[in-house]
C-alpha cells in the first residue's frame, strides 16, 4: 500500500547515466559508463580505490561536471544543473558538519537558506533529528558528538531537503565494526521507509551484498558488472569481479577436448578440469569456483607433489591437489588455503563441523574437489 502511494515519487528517483565520462587532465577517472538505477532502489557502487566510484557519485550530485555524456534524474537531464537543484542530497564521507553550528542548526541549514524563521526551522529540524534518534543532542556542537552521532546528524541534514536520491560516500567507513553493522541495518530500514533512491559508494563487498538491490562493481573507470547481489556473487562476470567480491577461486586452462556440453581444460601443473562451456579446442578458458562449494580431503603425498590431478570422466568431480598453507577458524567456517603450485593460493571454506571431524594440519597434502556444475566460466575483462 505504501509502495503504491509512493510510486510517483519513486519514478522521480530514477537515475540514468548515459556514456558518462570524467577526465582529470590526462587521467581518465570514469570511462564512458551507462547505467540505469530504478527509482527507490538501493544501489551500491563497489570497487577498489581509484575505480571511479566516488567520481561517479560526485557527478550525480553535481560536484563534478562530466567531461562527456549525460545524467538524468527522474524525467530531467541534470548534467548542467547545480547540486542544489537536482533533488539529490549527498552525505559526505567526513560528514562535513558545519563546526560553528549546533546539530539542529546544521540540520536546519537548508531551511535558513530559504528564509524560514528560526523557531519554525528549528522545530522542523528537531523532527528530523527525532527520526535518527538524535533529538536529545540538538543543541550540541559537532565537536561534542561521537562519529556515529555526527553521521546521524549529517543524515538528517541530507534528508530534510526531501531528496529523490540520497548519495552516500563511504558512509560506514569511519565507524567501528560493531556500529557499522547496526548503522547498515538502519540505513536499509530508512531507505525502505522513505522509498528514496539510495546510491551508496563502498569498497566493502560485504556491505554492498548486505544492502544493495543493485550492485555495480567498477574497475578502472568502467562498470565490470551490475546486477542483483546474488547474481553478482554466484555468477561473477570477470576474473576481477570474482576476485574482488571474494569467496572465489579463479582458475584457467586451455581447452584440450570437448565432451558434450563440457570443455575439458589443461591447467598449470597438468591439472585438468571439466567446465560447462562452449569454447572450442585450443581456447583459453577462465573460470571461478566458490570457496564454499569446495570439498577437501586428506591426500597422498604424490598428489601434492604433482600439483594437480584429474577427473577420469567429464561430469565427474574436478580435483586439485596441494599442500595446506594456512588454516583460519572463522566460526561457522574454517578457511583453508592450499598451495597448488600457482601464484594464487586455492581457498576452501569448510563448514566447521565437517573440518573438525578430520582436521587437517598446515603442511599436509590435501585434495580439493568440486562438482563441474559449480565451475562458473568468466569472460575476459
Amino acid at each position, binding site marked *: 500500500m505504501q509502495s503504491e502511494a509512493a510510486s510517483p515519487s519513486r519514478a522521480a528517483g530514477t537515475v540514468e547515466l548515459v556514456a558518462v565520462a570524467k577526465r582529470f587532465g590526462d587521467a581518465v577517472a570514469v570511462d564512458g559508463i551507462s547505467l540505469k538505477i530504478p527509482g527507490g532502489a538501493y544501489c551500491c557502487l563497489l570497487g577498489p580505490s581509484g575505480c571511479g566510484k566516488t567520481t561517479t557519485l560526485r557527478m550525480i*550530485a*553535481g*560536484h563534478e561536471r562530466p567531461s562527456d555524456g549525460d545524467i538524468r534524474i527522474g524525467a530531467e537531464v541534470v548534467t548542467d544543473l*547545480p*547540486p*542544489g*537543484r537536482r533533488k*539529490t*542530497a*549527498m552525505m*559526505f564521507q*567526513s560528514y*562535513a558538519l*558545519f*563546526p*560553528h553550528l549546533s546539530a539542529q542548526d546544521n540540520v536546519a*541549514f*537548508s531551511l*535558513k*537558506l*530559504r528564509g524560514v524563521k528560526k523557531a519554525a526551522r528549528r522545530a522542523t529540524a528537531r523532527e528530523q533529528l527525532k527520526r535518527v534518534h538524535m533529538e*536529545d*543532542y540538538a*543543541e*550540541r*556542537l559537532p565537536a*561534542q558528538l561521537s562519529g556515529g552521532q555526527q553521521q546521524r546528524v549529517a543524515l538528517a*541534514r*541530507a534528508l530534510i*531537503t526531501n531528496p529523490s536520491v540520497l548519495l552516500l560516500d563511504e558512509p560506514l567507513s569511519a565507524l567501528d565494526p560493531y556500529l557499522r553493522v547496526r548503522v547498515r541495518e538502519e540505513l536499509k530500514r530508512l531507505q525502505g521507509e522513505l522509498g528514496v533512491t539510495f546510491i551508496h559508494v563502498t569498497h566493502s563487498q560485504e556491505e554492498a551484498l548486505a544492502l544493495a538491490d543493485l550492485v555495480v562493481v567498477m574497475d578502472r573507470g568502467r562498470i565490470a558488472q551490475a546486477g542483483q547481489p546474488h547474481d553478482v556473487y554466484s555468477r561473477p562476470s570477470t576474473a576481477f569481479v570474482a576476485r574482488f567480491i571474494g569467496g572465489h577461486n579463479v582458475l584457467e586452462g586451455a581447452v584440450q577436448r570437448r565432451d558434450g556440453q563440457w570443455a575439458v581444460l589443461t591447467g598449470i601443473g597438468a591439472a585438468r578440469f571439466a567446465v560447462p562451456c562452449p569454447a572450442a579446442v585450443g581456447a583459453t578458458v577462465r573460470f571461478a569456483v566458490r570457496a564454499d562449494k569446495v570439498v577437501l580431503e586428506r591426500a597422498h603425498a604424490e598428489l601434492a607433489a604433482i600439483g594437480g590431478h584429474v577427473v577420469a570422466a567429464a561430469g565427474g568431480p574436478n580435483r586439485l591437489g596441494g599442500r595446506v598453507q594456512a588454516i583460519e577458524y572463522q566460526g561457522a567456517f574454517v578457511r583453508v588455503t592450499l598451495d597448488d603450485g600457482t601464484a594464487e593460493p586455492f581457498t576452501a571454506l569448510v563448514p566447521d563441523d565437517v573440518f573438525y571431524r578430520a582436521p587437517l594440519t598446515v603442511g599436509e597434502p590435501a585434495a580439493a574437489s568440486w562438482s563441474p556444475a559449480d565451475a562458473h566460466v568468466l569472460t575476459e575483462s
Partner: protein
Amino acid sequence: MHGRTPGCYLGTAFFALFVLFLYGPLSAIFVLSFQGPDGGLTFPMNGWSVHWFGALLERQAVGDFQGSFLRSFELGAVVMAATVAISLSAGLAFRRRFRGAGLLFYVVVASLIIPSILVSLGIGLLFRILDLDTAWWSSGLGAHLTWTLPFGLLIMFAVFNRFDKAYEEVARDQGATGAQTLRHVVVPIIAPSLVGVGLLGFTLSYDEFARTLLAVGTDLTLPLSIYGMTTNITTPVLYALGTVTTGFSFAVIAVFLVATRWLQRRTAARRSHVTART
C-alpha cells in the same frame, strides 16, 4: 630533578637575555617616567611624581602627541578593515587557479623583500610627480597596505590550505548560492583567522615607521612623532609618553584576551547546559 642537559641551561640563559633585552629598557622607561618635576632623563630618580604624565597633555611640552596618537589609531583601524577585506577576497581568488596567479603572487610578496624605506621613497616621489600632497590618510594608507596585505594574503593561503572543501560542497548541495556559502559557512568557520589577520594588520600599521617616513605628509603618525621627540625633547615627558603608549598596547591585548575568555565561557556554558539535559 634529573634530565637537565647543558642545552637546558643554554636555553634558560638565552631566554633570560631575551627577557632582559625586551623588558629591561622598558622597565627603565617605566620607572623614569615617574621622575620628580625636577628630574632628568637619566637615573638617579630625583623624587617621584606623575608630573610628566600631566605634561603630556600640554601641547608646547611634547608637540601634537594626542593628534598623532589618534591618527595612528584611525589609520590602524582603516588598515585593519582593508587588510581583512582584501586578504579574504584575494585568498578566495587564489583558490581558483587563474591566469597569472603565480606572477601576481610573486609581485605581491616582493613587497616584503623590497626595503621599506625605498617603498616609502617611491610613494613620496610618485605623489610629487603627480602633484599630489602626501598625507597619512592617502599615501600613508597606501604605504601601510603594501606592508600588511602580503602578510594577510600569506595567512589566508595557510587558512585555505587547511579548509575542508566539503563544507562548501555541503552548502551547495543544500542549495546555497556562492554568496550564501561565503556568508553562512566560509566566513564563520575561518572567523578566528580573520580576527588574527585584523589584529596583525592593526599592529603592523600602529608601529610602522620606515614605510611611513617619506609618505606621511605633514601630520605625523605616532611612531614618527615619538622619533621626532627623542631628538628635541630633553625631559622625562618622553618616558611618560613611552609608558602611556606601551600601556595602550597592553590594554588592546587585554581586551582581546577578555573577549576570548568570554567566548570560551559562553561555549562552556552551552556545553554544561546540554550535559545537564542529557
